[in-house]
């Protein structure tokens, strides 16, 4: 045991372990996997034969993952406060931004790992329903990127609010509210094109993305993920831990 600062790699391993070492953590991961498998099964049973393609199975299995990964991102941060482990964590690692950075790394790892999981689900569903093996490569990193954006928004909201139920509710309601407002109020429509992540992340699943679409995606990510992350890190660094 040395007197050097714990490396980011070591802290990331610890944070990964925290993700799976409690029943609640394991159940969240199992729920995500089961939901992905269930929606793919439903698609295999109820869709038109022509729609039973590898790409379609993959896309439906990505959807529940995209919905729940941000919750995982939120809990990754807020459980330290709800379970009061923050006291132990930040006593062992007083440079709190390092713990926060490790949590961000874990969030990104989770979004990348989710892609092969969806591929596996799609493979089984396609084979079982004798579907067509059509696919385009952008779906791979499109999903990884969409997951990463969602889970980082979750981590950011978690860091900013430091309260599990509040962060989950705000995360789920705010963007939806935004989508509804953007769709109903005309003057907000243009703004929504730049700030509604539901709209801006949609092109990630298209074969091609235009420069304008990238720009709009970038702006929305800066506002909904980067801003909360930076503000949240500042808050965690300054906040009293009791």
């Amino acid at each position, binding site marked *: *045991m040395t007197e050097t600062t*714990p490396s980011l790699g*070591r802290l990331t391993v610890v944070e990964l*372990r925290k993700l799976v070492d409690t029943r609640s953590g394991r159940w969240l991961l199992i729920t995500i996997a089961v939901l992905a498998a269930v929606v793919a099964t439903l698609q295999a049973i109820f869709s038109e034969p022509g729609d039973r393609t590898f790409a379609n199975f993959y896309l439906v299995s990505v959807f529940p993952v995209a919905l729940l990964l941000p919750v995982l991102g939120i809990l990754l941060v807020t459980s330290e406060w709800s379970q*009061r482990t923050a006291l132990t964590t930040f*006593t062992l690692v007083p440079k709190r931004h390092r713990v926060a950075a490790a949590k961000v790394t874990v969030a990104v790892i989770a979004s990348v790992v989710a892609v092969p999981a969806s591929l596996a689900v799609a493979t089984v569903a396609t084979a079982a329903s004798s579907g067509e093996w059509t696919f385009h490569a952008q779906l791979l990193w499109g999903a990884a990127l969409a997951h990463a954006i969602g889970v980082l928004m979750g981590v950011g909201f978690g860091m900013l609010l430091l309260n599990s139920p509040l962060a989950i509710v705000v995360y789920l309601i705010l963007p939806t509210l935004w989508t509804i407002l953007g769709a109903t109020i005309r003057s907000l429509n243009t703004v929504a094109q730049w700030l509604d992540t539901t709209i801006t992340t949609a092109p990630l699943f298209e074969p091609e993305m235009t420069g304008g679409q990238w720009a709009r995606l970038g702006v929305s990510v800066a506002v909904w993920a980067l801003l909360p992350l930076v503000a949240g890190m500042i808050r965690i660094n300054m906040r*009293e831990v009791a």
Partner: protein
Amino acid sequence: MIEITHLTKKYAGRAVVDDISFTCRPGTVTGFLGPNGSGKSTTLRILCGLTPPSAGSATVLGGAYRDLPNPARRVGVLLDASAQHGGRTGREALTLACLTVGAPRGRVAELFAQVGLDERAARKRVRAYSLGMRQRLGLAVALLGEPEVLILDEPANGLDPEGIAWMRTLLRSFADRGGTVLLSSHLLGEVQAVADQIVLIHHGRVVEQGRTADLVAGGRSLEDLFLTHTASGTETTP
């Protein structure tokens, strides 16, 4: 070595820690006493970099706790035994701490033996732990990196008489080997038995400070001293 210098902490203009100064030297145990809400825990939290002070300073081993690269290696801390995830087993909680600070995995079994938690206890979830067991687990985390300083907030709470005696021996031998111990406690008899030095605070201010032997001279007990200073009847109005 711990140095608290003119430390003040104000919340909404009200000082909960008010110009406190004291020093803890290697080889000694310091008993940090005071009624509930007198500012003990706040002082210890400031010392461990968890709460920023309003004025003054609190240093350990010559610098700020937050500047220690891997604090567990040099300073063992137990501030709240209940600050553990209830869903983790005792062994998992200690393993996480070991991984975090880079202690060898073999340390986990060693520490459980040292703090008197058996195999069955290690496998239990912390939720099912009694307060005494949590204190022992918290102490295991504090002892993890074989530190030279121990900062403990009410570590004897919830321990049975045997546990209290065990804790006394542990702290005494830690100090006798050159370690520095700062502990807060409500168990005045215990503190009197183990502490070389007493710091008594009330309403955030130091009201009595000195060597235990001097303070309890002439047949006076630490309890008499404590009550003299903290009983509401003797409070002076500013």
